[in-house]
């Protein structure tokens, strides 16, 4: 499905430590960025840039999809443990957003990579993440048509944050 792997050794093979090292390194970086972003004061709690997503984007360029999946999962769980939101409402939302945006970005990167740059993939991921969170909030917690009034606001934030984190991901993939 995907082209020849970019770091050639498999995890179980002789050079597998290198792949593991990359997963761990990128996860650490993503956790650091997520927590740093959490510290920035912002007017609304769900206004995020999604810098951790930039690391995921960069990971797509050097790792296999399965490994990126583990990276995404481990960074969401670890970041929520460190921030103290593990198994709370915030955690449910962030995991669902991260997984859905991973699926969309993975599909776009693998099958439609010819038509998208990292910025476009990032915006698509941010949109998916925000819309999934809205759907889940609507299905589980509020159950009202009124929450669809948030769609324009959320889409605006997704657009801005997606472009920013996409540019950051591009910067990473060019400079590391």
């Amino acid at each position: 499905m995907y082209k020849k792997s970019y770091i050639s050794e498999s995890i179980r093979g002789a050079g597998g430590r290198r792949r593991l090292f990359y997963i761990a390194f990128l996860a650490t970086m993503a956790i650091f960025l997520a927590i740093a972003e959490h510290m920035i004061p912002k007017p609304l709690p769900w206004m995020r840039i999604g810098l951790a997503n930039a690391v995921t984007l960069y990971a797509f360029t050097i790792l296999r999809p399965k490994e990126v999946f583990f990276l995404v999962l481990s960074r969401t769980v670890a970041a929520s443990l460190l921030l103290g939101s593990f198994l709370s409402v915030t955690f449910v939302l962030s995991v669902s957003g991260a997984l859905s945006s991973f699926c969309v970005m993975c599909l776009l990167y693998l099958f439609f990579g010819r038509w998208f740059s990292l910025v476009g993939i990032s915006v698509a991921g941010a949109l998916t993440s925000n819309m999934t969170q809205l759907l889940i909030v609507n299905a589980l917690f509020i159950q009202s048509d009124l929450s669809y009034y948030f769609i324009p606001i959320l889409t605006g934030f997704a657009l801005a944050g997606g472009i920013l984190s996409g540019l950051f991901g591009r910067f990473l993939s060019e400079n590391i």
Partner: protein
Amino acid sequence: MTVKKKRTRLRPGDCAIVAIAVSLIVVFSCRYFFASSGGARIEITAPSYDDSFSLEENRVVDVSGPLGITRVVIRDGEVWVSESPCKQKICVKMGHKHRVGDQIICIPNRVLVEIVGKGEQVDGIAR
């Protein structure tokens, strides 16, 4: 480590994604600002009064409450309270309302004016 392929330039798909996002913003904000009053009704509730009117037809409704008569005006798809016997006139100062879910409340005179839409279910959290 060899990087697979550098994706530096913007590609057609990026423009498409951004276009989708912008159209989502435009469509849903239009829905919010314009389409809200279609088929909406105004419900006026007081201790000895309970009636509902269409938002489209212009009329003036006098509602009698414990203090006296509260005058509710419906005109050009908007509703407001023009006169009220209460002290602070908060209901008058609430201004003109036109969106589904909007309310004008006069607590001293026990009058509630509410714009209700079809199939609208709003609970306390959302409001």
